[in-house]
């Protein structure tokens, strides 16, 4: 019999800690379990750090409008962690874009988001882009955000964060979930009527660990239909004028280079070269897992893995150079890797960047899967 909590949250990313803080402030007793040695070690930190305004959804106006609302709210709540001191420029490629310059502009007007037409030749090589637009969008600094969350949580004695946790078992009893885990050699157990699965790439792994107490085996399969991509974000040192701008070429062979929060680095990513390997299995199976602790049952941290792939810098930098004017120079600093789960349906549908699923009503289990940082507010109604 372990200690009892009002909520147990698996995964100390932004969604996990946001939920912990939200519930903690209500006076609930909360336990947060994290695999890595500190929070925000994976997807919350390792992504483009974009605070989405909605520019990415030219095919879904409703998503764009919702994004814009969340953007403003996120901005108010976390202004201290946001880098807005650069010009964020979106451009539409001349050749392969599914969305042309005019469509993009019309879409922005309809969504009520800033979109000021600029001359593409200011930033891009002649003929490469059909349109360039100054937009209102910025990036957040995950590490500043982390420090803030940790400081806030410190003031709440009812919220406990445990790192370096290895989950062993999740058993569904009549009224509670019983969770067995190992932390720094100790075998521990905890109970809760409310389990939140906020693990992102490991979401199916956690779900498949749940089983019913009567020994009937697996609970009903509520896993997500996802594929997994091992993604690379390149951090680089921007030089000269590039320091103060962020560039995103929309659609097609999409790439973007923009300030990575307040770290002083720029992140470089591209649609074609950022994903390295893909797994189409329900649970992430990869060749690179052989000989490591990582397995389809438990993902480790890709950035710290000995088997991480070679950087795609030669590809990504050439793609960026192909578009950008030659005076924008930058150099390689290092690469970050993380696993990205992609909802199968979202590939054709822009309308749901965040999915929250109630896996079990009683006891309650909720899983959240979101690739966008500012849709964190979607969780409020479930907490």
């Amino acid at each position, binding site marked *: 019999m372990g200690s009892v909590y009002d909520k147990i949250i698996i995964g100390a990313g932004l969604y996990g800690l946001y939920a912990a803080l939200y519930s903690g402030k209500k006076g609930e007793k909360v336990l947060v379990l994290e695999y890595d040695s500190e929070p925000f070690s994976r997807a919350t930190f390792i992504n483009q750090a974009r605070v989405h305004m909605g520019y990415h959804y030219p095919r879904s106006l409703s998503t764009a409008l919702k994004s814009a609302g969340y953007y403003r709210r996120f901005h108010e709540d976390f202004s201290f962690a946001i880098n807005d001191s650069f010009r964020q420029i979106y451009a539409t490629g001349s*050749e392969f874009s599914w969305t042309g310059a005019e469509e993009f502009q019309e879409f922005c007007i309809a969504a009520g988001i800033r979109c000021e037409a600029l001359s593409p030749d200011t930033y891009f090589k002649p003929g490469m882009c059909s349109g360039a637009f100054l937009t209102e969008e910025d990036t957040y600094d995950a590490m500043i955000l982390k420090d803030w969350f940790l400081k806030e949580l410190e003031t709440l004695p009812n919220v406990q964060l445990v790192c370096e946790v290895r989950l062993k078992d999740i058993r569904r009893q009549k009224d509670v979930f019983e969770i067995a885990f190992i932390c720094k050699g100790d075998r521990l157990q905890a109970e809760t009527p409310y389990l939140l699965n906020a693990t992102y790439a490991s979401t199916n792994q956690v779900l498949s660990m749940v089983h019913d107490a009567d020994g009937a085996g697996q609970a009903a399969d509520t896993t997500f239909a996802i594929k997994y991509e091992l993604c690379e974000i390149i951090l680089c040192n921007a030089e000269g004028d590039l320091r103060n701008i962020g560039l995103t070429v929309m659609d097609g*062979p999409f790439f973007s280079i923009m300030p990575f929060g307040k770290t002083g680095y720029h992140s470089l990513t591209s649609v074609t070269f950022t994903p390295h390997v893909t797994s189409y299995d329900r649970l992430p199976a990869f060749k690179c897992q052989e000989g490591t602790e990582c397995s389809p049952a438990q993902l480790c941290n890709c950035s710290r893995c000995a088997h991480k792939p070679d950087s795609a810098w030669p590809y990504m930098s*050439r793609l960026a150079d192909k578009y950008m004017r030659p005076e924008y120079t930058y150099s390689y600093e290092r690469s970050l890797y993380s696993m990205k789960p992609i909802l199968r349906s979202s590939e054709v549908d822009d309308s749901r960047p965040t999915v929250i699923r109630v896996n079990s009503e009683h006891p309650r289990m909720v899983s959240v899967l979101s690739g966008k940082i500012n849709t964190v507010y979607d969780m409020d109604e479930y907490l």
Partner: protein
Amino acid sequence: MPHSDREPKFVSVVTYIHNDEGRIRKFLDEVMGKCRDSFDKCELILVNDDSTDGSIDEIHRYFSEKPADYMVSIIKLGLKQGIESAMNIGRDMSIGDYVFEFDDLSIDYPIDMLTDAYGKCLEGSDIVSVSGNYRMRFTSKCFYSLYNRFSHGQYSIGPETFRLLSRRAINRIRSVGSFIPYRKAVYMNCGLKADRLTYDVTGGAQTAPKHGRSDERMNLAVDSFIYFTDLLERISLGICIMFIVIALGVVAFTVWSYFMDQHLASGWVSLMGFLSLGFTGVFGLFTIVLRYLSVLIDLSFRQRHHLIEDIEKISGN
């Protein structure tokens, strides 16, 4: 394994695929093998122009047997677009420092021609075209000699097996104009240094392989004359001038008859005078309209549409 003798360069190979099932394997083995041995990083872009045979299956089979350690992209075109626009799409997709364009998969050249072409590039030519010492077909001969005579280009063009472009050349081509109806012609007139390499054809073929069906080739030839030469404009201008001269002649004859010939039917002079002056005006206008049309052609060079159905990536780094 990084080879020390590899050039520290990124090379893109852009290849046109149209019902080439039987030739893909050899091409990939030899050309990509050579590129892997010679350059640090490679990329292969296969532009599938609506193949109706098993070309694409063959490509998949090849790479599942021999997984590539370079990037492979297959561009699937929505409908058959012909070699010129297909290869334009492929070239625009490429990201390499140097880009090889293969319009045809048959290899009748010593494989070292690839590195020879690269060597020429290093010597300062941004565009290197490689051709065999074929006997040219009569129609090709006519086309190239007429073309070269009237295009007033920097370099003359001829049949080519493959070519190598530097990234600088590609940037330049894009800034010259975005519509490229006939690649050779644009490449050779982009203002950068171009060079030509010739090889002795290995194997049996003595005449150059045909790229595309003959009606497509005919269309391309006529279009190229319109776009890149002033031959057609000159012909029409000539016809106009001829008619103006005839019309003026009639004017002169009418005037002469008015004074010299006393037996004219009444009204003949005024009728002929009106007709001939009128025709002179009409042909004058034609000349102006033709000029306008040629300006319009220049303007529409800025229009282009890539119709891609799908881009498939097989393997990365």
